[in-house]
């Protein structure tokens, strides 16, 4: 019976179209379009300052877009009178009042959305914070605040969940727990969007990836497709006849870079072609070893051009 049941009847799509956010002369998000689908965990990746948080704030109606639109389930989230039954979110674990107890914080959120107050105890238990319910948030560690924020996100049992860097401050056990939770939420048919600036985190968490840099979309594809980009081979070569070999390889269309340890990194030619070229021209090879780029490397490669705050970058 469409239009009557609770929103959990189906996971809801997040859709950004030409989404743009400018702060003064800085463009934080630049004509960003993407779709986040239910049933999978979508990783929202980008280096620091790429515009992830600005984007998530616009999804939640906290910031107004300078241009473009973003909708959740076909409607700007900010137009809804109440939010928790539609989207659960954890943007910043510090967005709480330190003088409040964990229980009071959640009770106020539940009450405002007309949710039964028993949900407070339920979500506190779910995130392993039942014992800390009566403590003031001001004394919590970052990890505990993250758990409290996740409890708040789960309060309304929403079909869409947004998490901004949720793994920060969690211990390894907490990280594993949270990964399982994301998986479980997605398996229940919910839409789960998790941001991170670390590819390694997403590698074990996400099914789909949205990669942005400097506010622009770099890639929106499955983790498998993204990983396939990394199959571009780098070949490590050591040779006493470097000059001759460099000329030969570059002549064949490859790129050659001298590494600090004296080895050469060749991209654009497979190892067997390099070996044949060397053999044909009598070049001595001391090492010829292919490396598949890791996911982290291909992420770095994709985003390097777009890194906002590169260490030591001259301006």
């Amino acid at each position, binding site marked *: 019976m469409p239009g009557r049941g*609770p929103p959990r009847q189906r996971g809801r799509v997040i859709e950004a179209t030409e989404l743009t956010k400018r702060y003064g002369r800085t463009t934080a998000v630049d004509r960003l379009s993407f779709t986040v689908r239910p049933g999978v965990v979508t990783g929202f990746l980008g280096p620091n300052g790429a515009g992830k948080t600005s984007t998530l704030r616009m999804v939640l109606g906290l910031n107004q877009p300078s241009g473009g639109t973003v909708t959740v389930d076909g409607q700007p989230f900010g137009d809804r009178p109440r939010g928790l039954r539609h989207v659960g979110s954890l943007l910043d674990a510090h967005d709480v009042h330190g003088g*409040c107890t964990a229980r009071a914080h959640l*009770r106020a959120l539940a009450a*405002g959305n007309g949710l039964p107050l028993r949900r407070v105890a339920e979500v506190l238990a779910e995130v392993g914070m039942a014992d800390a319910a009566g403590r003031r948030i001001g004394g919590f560690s970052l990890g505990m605040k993250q758990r409290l924020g996740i409890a708040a996100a789960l309060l309304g049992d929403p079909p869409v969940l947004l998490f901004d860097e949720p793994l920060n401050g969690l211990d390894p056990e907490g990280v594993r727990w949270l990964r399982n939770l994301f998986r479980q939420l997605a398996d*229940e048919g919910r839409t789960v969007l998790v941001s991170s600036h670390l590819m390694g985190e997403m590698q074990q968490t996400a099914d789909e990836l949205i990669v942005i840099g400097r506010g622009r979309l770099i890639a929106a594809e499955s983790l498998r497709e993204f990983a396939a980009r990394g199959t571009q081979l780098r070949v490590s070569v050591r040779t006493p006849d470097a000059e001759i070999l460099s000329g030969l390889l570059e002549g064949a269309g490859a790129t050659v870079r001298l590494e600090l340890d004296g080895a050469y990194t060749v991209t654009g030619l497979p190892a067997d072609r390099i070996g044949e070229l060397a053999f044909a021209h009598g070049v001595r090879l001391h090492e010829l070893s292919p490396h598949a780029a890791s996911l982290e490397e291909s992420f770095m490669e994709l985003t390097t051009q777009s890194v906002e705050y590169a260490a030591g970058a001259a301006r």
Partner: protein
Amino acid sequence: MTPELDEAPARLQARVPVARFRHLLAAEWIKLWSLRSTYWVLGVGALTVIGINVNSAVSNADRLAHQTPWSPDRPDFPDRSEFSFDPLTTAFVDPAWQMFMIITAAVGAIAVFGEYSSGLIRTTFAAVPDRQAVIAAKMTVVSAVMAALGMLVSGTSFAVTQMLLRDHGGLSLGDPGALRAVAAAALLAPLCALVGTAVGAVVRHAAGSVVTIVALLLLVPVLFQGERFRWVKEIGNAMPLSAWERLVTNPERAHDLGKYPLTVTEAWIVYGAWAGVAVTVAALVVRRRDV
């Protein structure tokens, strides 16, 4: 239409609750009373104001008890009411109530800037995207609590001081102007709380909010005085403090209200206008600003 095939996550079986304003009132009520600072500010504020007023009554009762009463043998001591003791003033000692204005306005402001400075406002607005409803609920709860506090402080001040002065013309609520004074003083609390809430919503920072509150509520009415320029005085008249001073004035002793006096009706209008403007300003500024 295709049938619903998606697997349904099922933890909370209830349907989406209807958005009701009373839910937001409950949320703001919980937030207000979950902070220890609320109890401190309200408790200390109330006791201080009542204490100052009671001290004034006790001192005056003491003084009057040892004063030679008027007699026809003392022509230098005329029997004119403007020179005789006005018991109503002891319940409404100016500095005490000015302090009360700042305390109540601060509670209103804290309710807003506390959320902004902690970041809680983002959590709040993500949970309730209808921002105007949030601020309306906040203002309702804060002003209701302040109205109760105002009635308590005003009523207690009046009752205790007039009881202490029972031998020196202490008033009862039935005397002219007494009920009006008690009501005006009681309503000063929610009025200032609303102004504070609006200031908090506009300024959004602790120090800035408090400075603005003190300037608006205490400095402006003192600065815009004098009778040389009517417009200057009229600005001063339009401030809550001036309106309160007019409303708590004993009508029996209202002899010299100056060249450009505020009438009682105008004073009530000042109260209403400030409350209305505060609500409007707060509702407008929260509407679309990034948080």
